[in-house]
């Protein structure tokens, strides 16, 4: 019997800060930044929101769509680079809030921005092996950029949750990864903000891994770009996924539904999962989706999904991705600094 996504859900905080507003404070050229990054504004978490609260809301929406009893979930894996605790898994709090019960495997995942898709792979493997009936995989982040750093224009907050199991709304046809030791972006224990190798982040890192993983999975499945209705790539900004798509031979039309970055920024572990969530919001039965994430360090996970007719009965059981994208309140830089706690006492 087919295995894949039986329910999905997302959550994005309500606040937004525009590129213009950040550029105003740092006296930089907003238009050239907007054009360069292909970002208009980004989401900002409230003072009382973090990876755990985002995961709870996204997970609740996924459960609504799956329509299963919470205690049928046998595993919870949360991928993030902003777990609130250094030691104490986010999954323990989220599982209690969602009433998943105690007979549960749980672990937090870390692999920069691809920890959420790594969670999907593990849930898929556990379901396929018969060890669990359903697994909950979540990618969520409340990312930080150092004030004045290029990342400040893009680092955003949000997440998406996927329940893997049988009788799916999207069959997981195939998945593989591409991994290497590449230091393009890192954060040492105890540091508030990450460091990055500036120009080193592009070619040998993002493009090498995204393109290799995507080529490998298409080759393995004997599929070409034109065989897919949708393509979603990790969105650290708008430019990188657009360029990767072009190199691989995907069109703007295939990219558009999952291209959430211009209105909410880079949600790190939530980035490509939020793109997948928005694609599932409108996809039709029989359509094929290609998803490739990217995590610095570095690695990419690729997936091929085929949408089933179950999507039609489950889609409207929870708020759509666009509900969270358009439900917003713009804030100024002063409020942003207060919310993000950037001023040190």
């Amino acid at each position, binding site marked *: 019997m087919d295995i894949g996504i039986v329910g999905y859900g997302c959550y994005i905080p*309500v606040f937004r800060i525009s590129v213009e507003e950040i550029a105003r404070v740092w006296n930089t050229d907003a238009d050239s930044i907007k054009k360069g990054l292909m970002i208009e504004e980004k989401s900002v978490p*409230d*003072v*009382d*929101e*973090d990876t*755990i*609260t985002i995961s*709870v*809301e996204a997970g*609740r929406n996924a459960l609504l769509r799956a329509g299963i009893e919470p205690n049928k979930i046998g595993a919870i894996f949360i991928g993030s680079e902003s777990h*609130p*605790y250094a030691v104490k898994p986010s999954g323990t*709090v989220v599982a*209690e*809030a969602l*009433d998943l019960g105690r007979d549960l495997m749980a672990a937090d995942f870390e692999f920069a921005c691809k920890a959420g898709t790594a969670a999907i792979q593990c849930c898929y493997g556990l379901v396929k092996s018969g060890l669990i009936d359903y697994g909950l995989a979540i990618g969520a982040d409340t990312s930080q950029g150092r004030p004045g750093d290029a990342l400040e224009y893009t680092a955003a907050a949000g997440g998406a949750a996927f329940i893997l199991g049988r009788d799916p709304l999207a069959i997981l046809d195939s998945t593989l990864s591409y991994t290497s030791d590449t230091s393009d972006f890192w954060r040492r224990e105890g540091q508030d903000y990450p460091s990055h190798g500036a120009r080193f982040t592009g070619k040998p890192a993002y493009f090498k891994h995204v393109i290799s993983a995507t080529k490998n999975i298409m080759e393995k499945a004997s599929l070409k770009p034109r065989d897919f209705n949708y393509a979603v790539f990790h969105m650290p900004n708008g430019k990188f996924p657009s360029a990767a798509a072009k190199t691989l031979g995907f069109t703007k039309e295939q990219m558009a539904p999952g291209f959430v970055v211009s209105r909410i920024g880079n949600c790190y572990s939530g980035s490509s999962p939020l793109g997948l969530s928005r694609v599932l919001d409108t996809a039709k039965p029989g359509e094929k989706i290609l998803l490739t994430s990217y995590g610095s360090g570095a690695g990419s996970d690729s997936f091929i999904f085929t949408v089933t007719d179950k999507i039609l009965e489950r889609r409207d059981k929870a708020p759509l991705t666009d509900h969270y994208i358009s439900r917003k*309140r713009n804030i100024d830089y002063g409020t942003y600094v*207060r919310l993000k*706690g950037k001023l040190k006492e």
Partner: protein
Amino acid sequence: MVHSSIPLFWRLRKAKYRLEGTKCRKCKSVFFPPRSFCSRCRRKGEIECFPFSGKGTIISYTIIRTPPEGFEKQSPYAVAIVKLDEGAQISGQVIGDLKEVETGKRVSAVFRKMYEDGPQGVINYGLKFALTG
């Protein structure tokens, strides 16, 4: 300052994370916080677990401008008494634009950070209310 002991919070987390109250099977009274004894049926009551939907209406509220320790970052904020659709009344923080908080407005429960016991302490999570109408 420590706001609640870890064992006490742990025992109450079903109520705090999921609005799990109780209901008397006999007279249908609902209780939140959960009670193990029906005040109406007394010894004849039959108490069972009852999850509230988290939807309700603001019946009264106040704005906190001088917050207790641990809540400074959130100040000013609204605290309301909410009548849940299933019957019980509870008090809780209302998030969102303070200007929009009014008696009679509809709310639903959302999962948020409540407070931190300092930078090294436990982070306490629970439910607040968001305006929905």
